[in-house]
């Protein structure tokens, strides 16, 4: 009986060890990657972007923020701190309100969704300015989509 149990545990433990190593490796890898911090705003309008910069910088729940001012649209993607992700929806709403207060004529979209951030970054690198309105519209509908 005891021999049987000992064998059982020995076999199981080797499985667990393998898993622990892969888990540790994963954590190390996760720690090595640098996060791009700070605020980047691309301004295609004559509006003063200082107020927007201040809104983003003052919010200590944010890790980074990017925004595009184009015609009458503000499209912004923000990365929030790990534990602030619980309040992602609230943060999005608050930031939208603050920006709308500062830029009354603009339609503001703030999203903490990584897809929106990624796409906004791509948009910033885009040379062809004519495509901007269409792309911004696409991203706005994407950010409003529910499951």
């Amino acid at each position, binding site marked *: *009986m005891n*021999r*049987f149990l000992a*064998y*059982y545990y020995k076999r199981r433990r080797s499985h667990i060890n393998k898993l622990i190593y892969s888990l540790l490796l994963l954590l190390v890898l996760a720690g090595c990657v640098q996060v791009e911090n700070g605020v980047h705003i691309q301004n295609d309008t004559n509006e003063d972007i200082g107020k927007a910069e201040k809104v983003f910088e003052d919010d200590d729940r944010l890790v980074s923020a990017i925004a595009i001012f184009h015609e009458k649209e503000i499209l912004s993607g923000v990365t929030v701190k790990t534990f602030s992700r619980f309040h992602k929806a609230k943060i999005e709403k608050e930031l939208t309100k603050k920006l709308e207060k500062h830029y009354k004529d603009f339609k503001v979209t703030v999203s903490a969704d990584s897809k929106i951030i990624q796409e906004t970054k791509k948009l910033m690198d885009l040379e062809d300015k004519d495509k901007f309105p269409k792309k911004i519209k696409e991203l706005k509908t994407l950010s409003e989509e529910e499951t």
Partner: protein
Amino acid sequence: MKGLLKFRTNPTIAATGVVVGPLEKKSPFKPLFDKVYDDERSGQPTNEKGHSKLVEDACMIALRKAGFVPDDADFLLIGDLVNQMTPSNFCASELQIPYVGMFSACATSISSLLTAALLTESGMSACSIAGASSQHNAVERQFRYPVEYGSQKPETAQWTVTAAGVAAVTPNQAGFPAIVSGTIGRVIDLGVTDPFNMGAAMAPAAADTLERHLNGHGRKVKHYDTIITGDLGKIGFEIYQKLIAKKKIETTNNLRDAGAEFFGDDSDFQAGASGTGCSAAIYFSDVYEKMMVGEYKRVLLIATGSLLSPLSFQQGDTIPCIAHAVELEMK
């Protein structure tokens, strides 16, 4: 006491046939099995048909070894665990031997052997085929979950084997193990409800039958070369030994359990093997061989069965259990 059988004419087991599935190759008893299938359905399209083929093969092997053809056999007394015992029924339909389905769950190997001995003793049977079988996939899907369903089996769980074991019982012939006495078990239910701990449910039945057999026939444990239980498994076997000690039955180290030994120490099978075919396969291979070569002179076989259905345990009922015993002697 009731339920005791004594055979004056000593019917003998003239031959046995044991056929198993592919996984049972892992068993240390593999060299003793007559036929091992590489396909878990024995080459048939469904599990149940494969099951049927398994029994049929075992019967044919036993008959051939005893020098008979199916037409010579008077009675076919076999059983299994599948609903209404269809695999045994289809086997009987193939063999065309007059047939009575036997059911004592995993104790069927012994209940059918005892019935065959009674028929032989009465002089109405020159050759009876008695045995039992089980097929893992067919039993598992009926009693537990689909075969591929992932559920964590506890250490107390037992693995239903794919095996069929049958014996050809004839009137007394010299040089073969003789059936000298037997004890029909009573249903014992001590309130175990866990279908993953069958060994614990069956252990009291085995201990009860052992006690009744020893008292009823005036035997001592040391009278036997071995007393081998059916499929209590590693945990059930431990409980059974404790129960015997509590009953103040003097034991030597001659206790064995077919379920606990079937797969050796392989932990993939948790507490060991179970199923109707488990006890039948070990009794009619290992034990029978050892008696034939004279290693064992007197043995007591106690097959245990848990008489539950998927419905009964889902409705929260306890697991009623039974154990039948048969004493074999090499004269």
